[in-house]
């Protein structure tokens, strides 16, 4: 049935080369886009947590919440509300694309269970650590969490025996250095109380996401990435809301408190508009992260996604600083320089720089 002209046909070779290049470039574009939407998600989430009932909790605190509840319970609750919104977006998307049935069918399979495990590491553990870190130390925690590509690459090597070349290692190191540079300028300037602890907590987020990227990247080689993200957000939202928030509620005094606060959070209209947006961006960001990882390899995919360490503070500056008129969100010059450095790191991971000089020889 396939009586074509054979693989030596120059037009077939050219078409094949074009398709491969398009696929790779699309993977890189998708992974980079995940970084941009991650920045937007961070900004909308942080902004949402200054609106409606949150403005009282973090401000006058007429509810009389303890310091512990404000730092941890609210952090977990913010993550839970965001992930539930995100899961709803993911399910709507799956339904529109005719993939909702497959979402249900994938749940109780080995790759589905891998995705749930990844979601638990990246959701309740990492997202909460990230939100708590963000609240305690400000946007400088974002670069710390950008360590996750390095962690993911190391875990990928240990768990799945994925190979990392010297060039890729150098690229990852450049990206991590760039991430640290963005954070370094903020240290010691207007550091809020508890900033160091916030940074340490943020490191756990990096650990959780590194684990998630490694496991989920492997899972999405078998599960459709749009189904994968639906599993991820649904697991993460439910686990946050029904496990983590009650645990922090119990530690804050009573489990009832956590459900009361959750009820108020979900019914706070002025804040929910922003959570709906942050949820949408989180859904798009994580979906494109998974997709990018599975298309162009975990190391490169995660490095492209890690540009969020620039996009996070960038969109916080635009949305909270410029649009919201809140002080303290402006972007230091070093952040711009680091962003360029990070791009260089990604380029090193993506391609051998020497190829730029000898690309004519390949043809």
């Amino acid at each position: 049935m396939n009586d074509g002209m054979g693989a030596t046909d120059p037009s077939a070779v050219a078409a094949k080369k074009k398709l491969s290049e398009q696929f790779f470039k699309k993977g890189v574009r998708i992974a980079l886009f995940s970084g941009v939407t991650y920045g937007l998600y961070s900004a909308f989430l942080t902004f949402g947590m200054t609106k409606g009932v949150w403005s009282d909790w973090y401000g006058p605190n007429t509810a009389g919440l303890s310091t512990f509840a404000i730092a941890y319970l609210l952090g977990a609750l913010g993550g839970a509300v965001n992930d539930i919104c995100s899961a709803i977006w993911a399910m709507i998307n799956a339904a529109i694309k005719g993939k909702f049935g497959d979402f249900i069918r994938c749940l109780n399979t080995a790759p589905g269970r891998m995705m749930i495990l990844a979601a638990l590491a990246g959701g309740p553990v990492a997202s909460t650590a990230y939100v708590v870190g963000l609240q305690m130390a400000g946007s400088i925690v974002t670069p710390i969490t950008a360590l996750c590509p390095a962690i993911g690459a190391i875990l990928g090597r240990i768990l799945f025996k994925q190979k990392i070349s010297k060039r890729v290692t150098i690229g990852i190191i450049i990206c991590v250095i760039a991430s640290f540079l963005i954070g370094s300028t903020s240290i010691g300037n207007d550091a809020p109380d508890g900033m160091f602890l916030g940074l340490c907590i943020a490191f756990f987020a990096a650990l959780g996401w590194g684990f998630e990227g490694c496991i989920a990247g492997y899972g999405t080689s078998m599960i459709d990435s749009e189904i994968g993200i639906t599993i991820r957000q649904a697991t993460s939202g439910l686990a946050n809301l029904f496990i983590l928030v009650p645990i922090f509620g119990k530690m804050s005094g009573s489990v009832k408190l956590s459900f009361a606060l959750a009820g108020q959070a979900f019914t706070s209209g002025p804040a929910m508009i922003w959570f709906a947006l942050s949820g949408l961006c989180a859904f798009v960001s994580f979906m494109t992260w998974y997709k990018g990882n599975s298309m162009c390899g975990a190391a490169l995919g995660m490095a492209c996604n890690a540009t969020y360490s620039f996009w996070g503070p960038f969109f916080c500056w635009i949305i909270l600083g410029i649009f919201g008129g809140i002080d303290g969100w402006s972007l230091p010059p070093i952040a711009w320089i680091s962003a360029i450095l990070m791009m260089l790191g990604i380029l090193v991971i993506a391609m051998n720089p020497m190829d730029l000089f000898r690309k004519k020889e390949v043809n």
Partner: protein
Amino acid sequence: MKPLNYAILKYFTTVKEACAEDVIEALKDEYGNFKALKKDAVVAALMTAEANGLLEETRFEMDQTGQLRIYYHAHEEGAATINKYIKD
């Protein structure tokens, strides 16, 4: 009924080699109403599986209509992984 992506991968453990068109033809009875059983989506799924070491390209050619066809097979390690994670 398996999720579509699983069925695509499983199909490769039963044939010597196949291209996107073969996959669509083989699965159209059961998955014909799935929006994702379209050439572009199947090509992307096969290339993703290749990027993750589950499938390996065997050959490619232009068909009579001037469309590129890339053939893949599940090599021993890929087939073992597919069968390990995706049960019948």
